[in-house]
Protein backbone atom coordinates (compact mmCIF):
# COMPACT_ATOMS: atom_id res chain seq x y z
CA UNK A 1 0.00 0.00 0.00
CA UNK A 2 2.46 2.64 1.11
CA UNK A 3 6.22 2.81 1.55
CA UNK A 4 7.54 0.79 4.43
CA UNK A 5 8.36 2.99 7.41
CA UNK A 6 11.83 4.44 7.36
CA UNK A 7 14.41 2.88 9.67
CA UNK A 8 17.99 4.02 9.94
CA UNK A 9 19.79 1.68 7.52
CA UNK A 10 23.42 1.13 6.64
CA UNK A 11 24.27 3.02 3.49
CA UNK A 12 27.12 3.38 1.03
CA UNK A 13 28.73 6.81 1.02
CA UNK A 14 30.10 8.63 -2.02
CA UNK A 15 33.51 6.97 -1.59
CA UNK A 16 31.91 3.53 -1.64
CA UNK A 17 32.34 2.82 2.09
CA UNK A 18 29.51 1.16 3.98
CA UNK A 19 28.38 3.46 6.76
CA UNK A 20 26.31 1.87 9.47
CA UNK A 21 24.56 4.57 11.49
CA UNK A 22 24.63 2.30 14.53
CA UNK A 23 28.45 2.68 14.56
CA UNK A 24 27.97 6.42 14.67
CA UNK A 25 25.58 6.50 17.60
CA UNK A 26 27.99 8.45 19.86
CA UNK A 27 27.83 11.34 17.39
CA UNK A 28 24.18 11.78 18.29
CA UNK A 29 25.21 13.34 21.55
CA UNK A 30 27.31 16.35 22.32
CA UNK A 31 29.27 16.28 25.53
CA UNK A 32 27.21 13.24 26.42
CA UNK A 33 23.95 15.15 25.99
CA UNK A 34 21.59 14.41 23.12
CA UNK A 35 20.35 17.37 21.14
CA UNK A 36 16.77 16.75 22.22
CA UNK A 37 17.90 17.20 25.82
CA UNK A 38 19.73 20.38 24.90
CA UNK A 39 16.48 21.76 23.49
CA UNK A 40 14.60 20.68 26.61
CA UNK A 41 17.13 22.42 28.84
CA UNK A 42 16.85 25.57 26.78
CA UNK A 43 13.05 25.55 26.97
CA UNK A 44 12.93 24.96 30.71
CA UNK A 45 15.67 27.41 31.68
CA UNK A 46 14.80 30.22 29.25
CA UNK A 47 17.96 32.00 30.32
CA UNK A 48 17.48 34.82 27.81
CA UNK A 49 13.86 35.27 28.84
CA UNK A 50 12.88 34.93 25.18
CA UNK A 51 10.02 32.45 25.59
CA UNK A 52 7.64 34.46 27.76
CA UNK A 53 5.50 36.11 25.09
CA UNK A 54 1.97 34.73 25.21
CA UNK A 55 -1.22 34.37 23.24
CA UNK A 56 -3.30 37.52 23.49
CA UNK A 57 -5.66 37.39 26.54
CA UNK A 58 -4.07 34.08 27.65
CA UNK A 59 -1.05 35.06 29.75
CA UNK A 60 -0.46 31.47 30.87
CA UNK A 61 -0.07 30.14 27.30
CA UNK A 62 3.46 31.29 26.59
CA UNK A 63 5.98 30.22 23.96
CA UNK A 64 7.65 28.17 26.67
CA UNK A 65 4.46 26.31 27.55
CA UNK A 66 3.53 25.58 23.96
CA UNK A 67 7.01 24.37 22.95
CA UNK A 68 7.21 22.21 26.07
CA UNK A 69 3.88 20.58 25.35
CA UNK A 70 4.68 19.95 21.70
CA UNK A 71 8.22 18.77 22.44
CA UNK A 72 7.96 16.71 25.62
CA UNK A 73 4.35 15.73 25.73
CA UNK A 74 3.71 15.61 21.98
CA UNK A 75 0.16 16.86 22.51
CA UNK A 76 -1.90 17.24 19.34
CA UNK A 77 -3.30 20.58 18.22
CA UNK A 78 -6.83 19.24 18.72
CA UNK A 79 -6.12 18.28 22.34
CA UNK A 80 -4.48 21.62 23.06
CA UNK A 81 -7.39 23.43 21.46
CA UNK A 82 -9.96 21.49 23.54
CA UNK A 83 -8.00 21.96 26.75
CA UNK A 84 -7.42 25.71 26.36
CA UNK A 85 -10.68 26.52 24.58
CA UNK A 86 -8.72 28.28 21.84
CA UNK A 87 -9.31 27.55 18.13
CA UNK A 88 -6.56 25.57 16.40
CA UNK A 89 -5.79 28.34 13.84
CA UNK A 90 -5.11 30.75 16.73
CA UNK A 91 -2.85 28.26 18.51
CA UNK A 92 -0.97 27.16 15.42
CA UNK A 93 -0.58 30.74 14.17
CA UNK A 94 0.99 31.69 17.50
CA UNK A 95 3.20 28.62 17.30
CA UNK A 96 4.37 29.49 13.77
CA UNK A 97 4.90 33.20 14.35
CA UNK A 98 6.59 32.93 17.74
CA UNK A 99 7.57 29.41 18.90
CA UNK A 100 8.91 28.11 15.57
CA UNK A 101 10.90 31.30 15.15
CA UNK A 102 12.51 30.88 18.58
CA UNK A 103 13.36 27.24 17.86
CA UNK A 104 14.97 28.31 14.59
CA UNK A 105 17.00 31.01 16.34
CA UNK A 106 18.12 28.52 18.98
CA UNK A 107 19.21 26.09 16.25
CA UNK A 108 21.18 28.87 14.55
CA UNK A 109 22.89 29.79 17.81
CA UNK A 110 23.90 26.17 18.34
CA UNK A 111 25.25 26.02 14.81
CA UNK A 112 27.13 29.29 15.14
CA UNK A 113 28.62 28.17 18.42
CA UNK A 114 29.97 25.19 16.51
CA UNK A 115 28.25 22.86 18.91
CA UNK A 116 25.96 21.49 16.29
CA UNK A 117 28.67 20.69 13.77
CA UNK A 118 28.56 17.12 14.83
CA UNK A 119 24.83 16.95 14.27
CA UNK A 120 24.65 18.54 10.86
Amino acid at each position, binding site marked *: *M*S*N*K*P*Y*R*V*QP*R*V*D*DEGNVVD*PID*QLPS*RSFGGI*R*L*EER*VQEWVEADVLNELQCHIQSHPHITCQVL*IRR*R*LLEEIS*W*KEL*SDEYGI*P*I*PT*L*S*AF*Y*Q*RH*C*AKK*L*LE*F*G*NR*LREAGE*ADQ*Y*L
Partner: protein
Amino acid sequence: MTNSTNQPSELAITVPLSTANRGQAEAFAQHQSSSAKQDRVYRNTLAVSAVNYYLQLQQFSTDLESCNSWSIPNQFCEDAADLMVVGLGKVECRPIASLDEPLSLPPEVWLDRIGYIAVHLNADFTEATLLGFITAFNPDELDPDNPIKTISLSELQSLDDLMDYFERLELGQPIVEQLLSTPEYAPLVEADPYARLMLVAQLERIYRCDPPRKWRVKGENVLSEGSHLAAAIRKGDTSGGGISVDRLKIQDLAEELLERLADVWRQGEVQQ
Protein backbone atom coordinates in the same frame (compact mmCIF):
# COMPACT_ATOMS: atom_id res chain seq x y z
CA MET B 1 6.62 -1.22 -4.38
CA THR B 2 3.80 1.22 -4.38
CA ASN B 3 0.62 -0.67 -5.00
CA SER B 4 -1.55 2.20 -6.07
CA THR B 5 -4.60 2.41 -8.28
CA ASN B 6 -3.78 5.99 -9.22
CA GLN B 7 -1.10 7.19 -11.56
CA PRO B 8 0.70 10.52 -11.36
CA SER B 9 -0.56 13.06 -13.84
CA GLU B 10 1.35 13.39 -17.11
CA LEU B 11 2.33 16.86 -15.94
CA ALA B 12 4.11 15.50 -12.86
CA ILE B 13 7.90 15.71 -12.84
CA THR B 14 10.24 13.07 -11.44
CA VAL B 15 13.63 14.08 -10.03
CA PRO B 16 16.49 11.95 -8.66
CA LEU B 17 17.39 11.77 -4.97
CA SER B 18 21.13 11.44 -4.42
CA THR B 19 23.14 9.55 -1.83
CA ALA B 20 23.92 12.92 -0.29
CA ASN B 21 20.18 13.71 -0.05
CA ARG B 22 19.53 10.43 1.75
CA GLY B 23 22.58 10.97 3.98
CA GLN B 24 21.26 14.37 5.04
CA ALA B 25 17.79 12.94 5.68
CA GLU B 26 19.33 10.18 7.76
CA ALA B 27 21.50 12.63 9.71
CA PHE B 28 18.40 14.64 10.64
CA ALA B 29 16.25 11.57 11.36
CA GLN B 30 18.77 10.11 13.79
CA HIS B 31 18.06 12.82 16.34
CA GLN B 32 14.48 11.71 16.75
CA SER B 33 13.73 9.26 19.51
CA SER B 34 10.66 7.53 18.03
CA SER B 35 10.57 5.67 14.73
CA ALA B 36 7.43 7.59 13.73
CA LYS B 37 9.30 10.88 14.08
CA GLN B 38 12.40 9.49 12.37
CA ASP B 39 10.19 8.51 9.47
CA ARG B 40 8.54 11.94 9.39
CA VAL B 41 11.83 13.83 9.41
CA TYR B 42 13.41 11.51 6.82
CA ARG B 43 10.56 11.93 4.35
CA ASN B 44 10.20 15.67 4.92
CA THR B 45 13.92 16.17 4.30
CA LEU B 46 13.78 14.21 1.05
CA ALA B 47 10.66 16.03 -0.15
CA VAL B 48 12.37 19.38 0.47
CA SER B 49 15.54 18.14 -1.28
CA ALA B 50 13.52 17.07 -4.33
CA VAL B 51 11.74 20.40 -4.69
CA ASN B 52 15.00 22.23 -4.03
CA TYR B 53 16.62 20.31 -6.91
CA TYR B 54 13.74 21.14 -9.25
CA LEU B 55 13.55 24.84 -8.37
CA GLN B 56 17.30 25.27 -8.76
CA LEU B 57 17.03 23.69 -12.22
CA GLN B 58 14.39 26.33 -12.94
CA GLN B 59 16.87 29.05 -11.89
CA PHE B 60 15.24 29.92 -8.57
CA SER B 61 17.50 30.57 -5.58
CA THR B 62 16.58 28.80 -2.38
CA ASP B 63 17.74 29.17 1.22
CA LEU B 64 17.64 26.04 3.38
CA GLU B 65 19.27 27.70 6.38
CA SER B 66 16.18 29.78 7.12
CA CYS B 67 13.81 26.80 6.96
CA ASN B 68 12.14 25.05 9.88
CA SER B 69 12.51 21.80 7.95
CA TRP B 70 16.30 22.19 8.09
CA SER B 71 16.42 23.06 11.81
CA ILE B 72 16.76 20.15 14.22
CA PRO B 73 15.10 21.94 17.19
CA ASN B 74 12.06 22.60 14.99
CA GLN B 75 12.03 19.01 13.75
CA PHE B 76 11.35 17.83 17.31
CA CYS B 77 8.16 19.89 17.61
CA GLU B 78 6.67 20.26 14.16
CA ASP B 79 5.91 18.40 10.97
CA ALA B 80 7.34 21.00 8.59
CA ALA B 81 8.77 20.59 5.08
CA ASP B 82 9.24 24.22 4.13
CA LEU B 83 11.64 25.54 1.50
CA MET B 84 12.44 29.25 1.19
CA VAL B 85 12.43 30.50 -2.39
CA VAL B 86 14.49 33.68 -2.24
CA GLY B 87 12.42 36.77 -2.96
CA LEU B 88 9.11 34.86 -3.21
CA GLY B 89 8.46 33.10 0.11
CA LYS B 90 8.26 29.56 1.48
CA VAL B 91 6.76 26.59 -0.33
CA GLU B 92 5.77 23.56 1.71
CA CYS B 93 6.97 20.30 0.13
CA ARG B 94 4.67 17.59 1.49
CA PRO B 95 5.73 13.98 1.09
CA ILE B 96 2.97 11.51 0.34
CA ALA B 97 3.52 7.79 0.74
CA SER B 98 0.91 6.67 -1.75
CA LEU B 99 -0.85 8.09 -4.77
CA ASP B 100 -4.15 7.07 -3.15
CA GLU B 101 -3.48 9.36 -0.24
CA PRO B 102 -4.64 12.98 -0.10
CA LEU B 103 -2.17 15.74 0.60
CA SER B 104 -2.39 16.42 4.32
CA LEU B 105 -1.44 19.75 5.87
CA PRO B 106 -1.00 19.88 9.66
CA PRO B 107 -1.77 23.17 11.48
CA GLU B 108 1.89 24.07 11.94
CA VAL B 109 2.22 24.64 8.18
CA TRP B 110 -1.02 26.58 7.57
CA LEU B 111 0.51 30.04 7.68
CA ASP B 112 3.26 31.84 5.87
CA ARG B 113 3.45 29.46 2.91
CA ILE B 114 2.99 30.80 -0.62
CA GLY B 115 2.05 27.29 -1.76
CA TYR B 116 2.07 23.55 -1.11
CA ILE B 117 3.70 20.97 -3.39
CA ALA B 118 2.76 17.28 -3.19
CA VAL B 119 5.84 15.03 -3.47
CA HIS B 120 5.60 11.27 -3.97
CA LEU B 121 8.72 9.40 -2.78
CA ASN B 122 9.45 6.03 -4.36
CA ALA B 123 9.88 2.92 -2.19
CA ASP B 124 13.67 2.98 -1.99
CA PHE B 125 13.90 6.77 -1.81
CA THR B 126 15.95 7.11 -4.99
CA GLU B 127 13.54 9.41 -6.77
CA ALA B 128 10.70 11.79 -6.06
CA THR B 129 7.76 12.80 -8.23
CA LEU B 130 6.45 16.34 -7.88
CA LEU B 131 2.73 15.85 -8.47
CA GLY B 132 1.44 19.41 -8.39
CA PHE B 133 0.69 22.26 -6.06
CA ILE B 134 -1.94 24.44 -4.46
CA THR B 135 -1.55 28.10 -3.52
CA ALA B 136 -1.76 29.70 -0.09
CA PHE B 137 -5.15 29.49 1.61
CA ASN B 138 -6.92 31.20 4.47
CA PRO B 139 -6.70 29.06 7.67
CA ASP B 140 -9.84 30.70 9.07
CA GLU B 141 -11.88 28.97 6.37
CA LEU B 142 -10.97 25.50 7.66
CA ASP B 143 -13.44 23.18 9.37
CA PRO B 144 -12.71 23.52 13.12
CA ASP B 145 -13.79 19.91 13.77
CA ASN B 146 -11.44 18.55 11.17
CA PRO B 147 -8.21 20.39 11.85
CA ILE B 148 -5.90 18.66 9.39
CA LYS B 149 -6.52 20.19 6.02
CA THR B 150 -6.49 17.57 3.29
CA ILE B 151 -6.36 18.16 -0.42
CA SER B 152 -7.26 15.48 -2.91
CA LEU B 153 -4.54 14.98 -5.51
CA SER B 154 -7.05 15.65 -8.28
CA GLU B 155 -7.33 19.24 -7.05
CA LEU B 156 -3.65 19.94 -7.64
CA GLN B 157 -2.46 22.35 -10.30
CA SER B 158 0.46 21.47 -12.55
CA LEU B 159 4.07 22.57 -12.08
CA ASP B 160 3.67 24.73 -15.20
CA ASP B 161 0.98 26.58 -13.27
CA LEU B 162 3.42 26.84 -10.37
CA MET B 163 5.94 28.59 -12.62
CA ASP B 164 3.22 31.00 -13.81
CA TYR B 165 2.26 31.62 -10.19
CA PHE B 166 5.88 32.34 -9.23
CA GLU B 167 6.11 34.72 -12.15
CA ARG B 168 3.01 36.62 -10.96
CA LEU B 169 4.52 36.86 -7.46
CA GLU B 170 7.78 38.19 -8.92
CA LEU B 171 5.90 40.77 -10.96
CA GLY B 172 3.78 41.71 -7.96
CA GLN B 173 6.57 42.35 -5.44
CA PRO B 174 7.74 45.74 -6.77
CA ILE B 175 4.13 46.93 -7.20
CA VAL B 176 3.34 46.21 -3.57
CA GLU B 177 6.63 47.63 -2.34
CA GLN B 178 6.07 50.83 -4.28
CA LEU B 179 2.54 51.44 -3.03
CA LEU B 180 3.34 50.56 0.57
CA SER B 181 6.23 53.02 0.64
CA THR B 182 4.05 56.02 -0.26
CA PRO B 183 3.54 58.56 2.57
CA GLU B 184 -0.19 57.83 2.46
CA TYR B 185 0.02 54.08 3.08
CA ALA B 186 3.43 53.48 4.68
CA PRO B 187 2.20 54.24 8.24
CA LEU B 188 -0.57 51.62 7.92
CA VAL B 189 1.54 48.57 7.21
CA GLU B 190 4.24 46.69 9.08
CA ALA B 191 7.56 46.64 7.25
CA ASP B 192 8.28 42.94 7.92
CA PRO B 193 9.88 41.63 4.69
CA TYR B 194 8.38 38.15 4.95
CA ALA B 195 4.88 39.53 5.57
CA ARG B 196 5.29 41.55 2.34
CA LEU B 197 6.04 38.38 0.39
CA MET B 198 2.99 36.64 1.85
CA LEU B 199 0.82 39.66 1.13
CA VAL B 200 1.48 39.34 -2.61
CA ALA B 201 0.56 35.61 -2.50
CA GLN B 202 -2.63 36.33 -0.55
CA LEU B 203 -3.68 39.10 -2.94
CA GLU B 204 -2.94 36.84 -5.93
CA ARG B 205 -5.48 34.39 -4.56
CA ILE B 206 -8.13 37.10 -4.34
CA TYR B 207 -7.31 38.23 -7.88
CA ARG B 208 -7.82 34.69 -9.16
CA CYS B 209 -10.79 33.61 -7.03
CA ASP B 210 -12.94 36.66 -6.33
CA PRO B 211 -14.80 39.12 -8.59
CA PRO B 212 -13.43 42.70 -8.56
CA ARG B 213 -16.47 43.99 -6.62
CA LYS B 214 -15.29 41.91 -3.62
CA TRP B 215 -11.64 42.97 -3.79
CA ARG B 216 -12.06 45.90 -1.38
CA VAL B 217 -13.41 43.83 1.48
CA LYS B 218 -11.49 40.62 0.80
CA GLY B 219 -8.28 42.62 0.53
CA GLU B 220 -9.09 44.42 3.76
CA ASN B 221 -9.50 41.04 5.49
CA VAL B 222 -6.05 39.96 4.29
CA LEU B 223 -4.45 43.21 5.40
CA SER B 224 -6.17 43.09 8.80
CA GLU B 225 -5.15 39.50 9.45
CA GLY B 226 -1.95 38.46 11.14
CA SER B 227 1.10 40.62 11.01
CA HIS B 228 0.36 42.99 8.14
CA LEU B 229 -1.02 46.10 9.81
CA ALA B 230 1.18 48.40 11.86
CA ALA B 231 0.69 47.88 15.60
CA ALA B 232 -0.79 51.36 16.09
CA ILE B 233 -3.46 50.64 13.46
CA ARG B 234 -4.23 47.15 14.78
CA LYS B 235 -5.05 48.63 18.16
CA GLY B 236 -7.16 51.36 16.56
CA ASP B 237 -10.45 51.96 18.32
CA THR B 238 -13.41 50.89 16.21
CA SER B 239 -15.83 50.64 19.12
CA GLY B 240 -17.67 53.85 18.27
CA GLY B 241 -19.83 51.97 15.77
CA GLY B 242 -19.75 52.37 12.04
CA ILE B 243 -16.66 52.11 9.93
CA SER B 244 -13.61 53.89 11.30
CA VAL B 245 -11.44 56.07 9.13
CA ASP B 246 -8.66 53.50 9.41
CA ARG B 247 -10.87 50.76 8.00
CA LEU B 248 -11.84 52.91 5.04
CA LYS B 249 -8.21 53.73 4.43
CA ILE B 250 -7.27 50.06 4.59
CA GLN B 251 -10.03 49.26 2.11
CA ASP B 252 -8.73 52.00 -0.19
CA LEU B 253 -5.27 50.48 0.06
CA ALA B 254 -6.58 46.96 -0.62
CA GLU B 255 -8.48 48.11 -3.67
CA GLU B 256 -5.58 50.06 -5.08
CA LEU B 257 -3.15 47.20 -4.47
CA LEU B 258 -5.40 44.73 -6.24
CA GLU B 259 -6.12 47.01 -9.17
CA ARG B 260 -2.44 47.69 -9.76
CA LEU B 261 -1.53 44.03 -9.38
CA ALA B 262 -4.34 43.02 -11.74
CA ASP B 263 -2.93 45.41 -14.34
CA VAL B 264 0.52 43.81 -14.39
CA TRP B 265 -0.83 40.28 -14.09
CA ARG B 266 -3.23 40.76 -17.02
CA GLN B 267 -0.39 42.14 -19.11
CA GLY B 268 1.65 39.07 -18.16
CA GLU B 269 -1.17 36.78 -19.36
CA VAL B 270 -1.48 38.58 -22.68
CA GLN B 271 2.23 38.17 -23.35
CA GLN B 272 2.12 34.41 -22.84
